[in-house]
């Protein structure tokens, strides 16, 4: 019995670990500046805890194998433990864990402790059940006023743009996020109804969109292409369908797009969506 259990534990450990090592299923290739650091930290953590996992499981298997009751030992070893060991493994784990914790802050700090760098490309993100609205400031770089009262679904004015505001003349609103490559992007995230979550797996980036708040976050995408954009916070019935795309465009192509008036913008985005392919998954 003891042997069988040991072997099963070892096999399960082997299976679990290999699932992580063959990497048949793994992160999609990263496309943001902070991602490599993050992936390194992830790998490091996985290795540390993986070792711990293996060590613990192998140890467990060893114990049940070695110390199964074979009937040839009359009594077990009589001990109440060893304070030396306690101290050792407490300190060791403490060091490892706190170490990991501290290292785990760097990417976070770089993303969340400071404003977007100057010259970042601003986008207003307005989520709603169950669609994304991305509000582009246009050539003047100034966003037109928005007002919940002015929201008018029939006129496709989903974010309540104020026609009276001159700044909105060159603005455009679209359900697809188009950002320039290698240039910081600043998103001003808010929601019209319930909590949603902006998520592009390739970006290794997530943030809730909390109604009543405008949360400013920033990242830099560094690979041109088309990527899927998901809502990662339960927001109701069609949460799983609240999908859109993020286009990462070469600077000039992006410039040209942003310059376009609303309707031309629409058609252009459709072309671009056709032009760029999703990464091979």
């Amino acid at each position, binding site marked *: 019995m003891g042997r069988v259990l040991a072997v099963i534990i070892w096999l399960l450990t082997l299976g679990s670990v290999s699932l992580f090592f063959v990497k048949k299923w793994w992160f999609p290739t990263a496309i943001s500046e902070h991602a490599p650091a*993050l992936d390194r930290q992830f790998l490091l953590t996985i290795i540390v805890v993986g070792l711990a996992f293996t060590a613990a499981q192998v140890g467990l298997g060893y*114990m049940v194998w070695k110390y199964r009751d074979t009937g040839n030992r009359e009594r077990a070893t009589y001990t109440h*433990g060893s304070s030396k060991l306690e101290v050792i493994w407490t300190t060791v*784990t403490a060091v490892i864990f706190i170490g*990991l914790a501290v290292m785990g802050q760097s990417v976070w700090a770089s993303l969340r402790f400071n404003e977007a760098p100057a010259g970042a490309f601003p986008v207003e993100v307005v989520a709603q*059940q169950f669609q994304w609205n991305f509000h582009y400031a246009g050539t003047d770089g100034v966003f037109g006023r928005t007002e919940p009262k002015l929201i008018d679904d029939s006129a496709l004015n989903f974010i309540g743009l104020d026609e009276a505001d001159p700044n909105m003349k060159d603005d455009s609103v679209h359900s697809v996020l188009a950002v320039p490559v290698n240039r910081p992007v600043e998103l001003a995230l808010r929601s*019209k109804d319930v909590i949603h979550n902006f998520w592009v797996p390739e970006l290794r980036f997530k943030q809730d969109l909390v109604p009543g708040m405008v949360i400013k976050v920033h990242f830099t995408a560094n690979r041109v292409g088309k990527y899927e954009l998901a809502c990662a916070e339960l*927001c109701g019935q069609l*949460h799983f369908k609240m999908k859109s795309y993020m286009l990462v465009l070469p600077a000039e192509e992006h410039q040209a797009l942003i310059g376009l008036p609303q309707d031309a913008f629409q058609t252009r985005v459709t072309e671009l969506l056709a032009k760029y392919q999703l990464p091979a998954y």
Partner: protein
Amino acid sequence: MSGEAHAEVHRHPAPTSFIRKYIFSVDHKVIGIQYILLALVAVLVGMTMSVLMRMNLSWPGTNWPILGTLFPGGAPDGMMTPEFYLSLVTMHGTIMVFFVLTTAPQGGFGNYFLPIQIGAEDMAFPYLNMLSFWVTLVGFIVILAAIFFSGAESTVGPIGGWTGYAPLSALGQIAGPGQGMGMNLWIISIAIFCVGSLLGALNFITTLLNMRTRGMSLMRMPLTCWAWFTTAVLALLSFPVLLGGGILLLLDRVAGTSFFIPGGLYISGLLSGADERFPIHTGGSPILWQHLFWFFGHPEVYIAILPGMGATSHILATFARKPVFGYRAMVFAIFAIGLLGFFVWGHHMFISGMSPYSAMTFSILTLSIGVPSAVKTFNWLGTLWGGRIRFTTAMLFAIGFVSLFVAGGITGLVLGQTSLDLPMHDTYFVTAHFHLVMGVASIFGMFAATYFWFPKMFGRMMNEKLGKIHFWITFVGVYCIFVPMHTMGIVGMPRRFAQFTEYEYLKSLHPLVVFVSIAAIATVLTQVLFYFNLFWSMFKGAKATDNPWEATTLEWNTASPPPHDNFAGVLPVVHRGPYEFAVPGAPNDFMMQTDPEPAEMPAGDGSGNGHNGHKH
């Protein structure tokens, strides 16, 4: 307070009428069994729901004729609707967390064995004890009511996840299906449950502090008692906060207040304040709800696992025939976990828009809570080391607990880092994490406890052969279910998705998803063995002796099942620590806590509390 305890003790002579004996009983043993039965019913509901969920996830758009007839609304012509799925998720989570893992480990086994293990005749407040159970039961009935009166015939309950994030949960009907009556019932049920647990908790604490028999010093208590005690303290301090939050959330829904609802919302074509369907709301903060919820929520997860840890330590020592390794360290670890458990709730809110600086603080505290857990793990291994392990089913499940707890715990260290939570939050990586620790480690603790204490509770043995089959399949099964979920999470599969068909990047995962579902269905079916074994053995099992496992603690001093007042009038007197196995020179390899000191035992060595340097 002369006669105080006295009055408590003889408050209730053994009842005779069936009702007073088995239904409205004030006997902690009966109440404990009632709690366990409640959990066993609840878990059936929960498991069934999980199977339905898996079916929908891995074979989307398939017609399940049975479902069509069972849920004409939720699965029109047998195809599950997204809202049906989401309500399943919500109910699955709620029922499992509240009505399975907060009832069986504490209210069930705690109720039954805490008084016996400390040598008391009953709980400190028998009537309050009965009340707690019936209140909890009402809570369960209300949550079941939410299945049938969910407000939309296409759902089987509210849609909000077991965390019921506002404002989705606060806005009412206009927020879509599953936001009607069902959500009210959900909140009410939780509130009722809070009250029940509160009463239970203060009963446990009083009992343990005041009613320990002579010689049962704190450091001679079995680790199970420490675990139940700490759990009770956690419950006492965390449930009231959820209760407060619940009241506010309910007011938002029924009284038109806006504690958690900010201004200027626009939903399903209506502006806040447009008309009576959507009254004016302003000034509320969704994040406040998350704080209130998780301030309770994180301690709750330790409420769920601590009793399992206690049972595991207890059982490992018993069947390794060896004192617990580092008893004192174990006690400190339990306490450290309980204390730190209050300092880390923010790790559920890294991405929620919470201040990034608090996030960092929470992150570091979160990883420090891994330390006491690690200490416990190592001490469990230490307990096995040098033992003479007897592989009873209970022991197998206890060992399984250790294995699964490590597997689930270490991923907590990944999620605990703010940076890594960016990709991992709300993916199946989280689902994998908490199912391994909570979903199955804690449950394994309960299995172990059931197989271990069944003889004491019912005076009959459970069938070992069946039990072992149950263990092997379940053990392998749950690994197959929940380990692949990690990789799904790494690929980026989000939680609470009714289907994964929409996203290209998830397509490659389909084989894995199907594999998991098959494993899940197999595992769930295996549980039939457990239920059969349980109820069959109750009536047909082989008669059990008073101490079938040759264990040392007080519950094995009394008859199986124990008499109405636990010790037939004479309270035991305790002479030594709880786990004195393999004592050199002792007549046999286990010394009951009640055995008088043999001459050769060095004096004062009885306390069993990690007399270190005591190795040979």
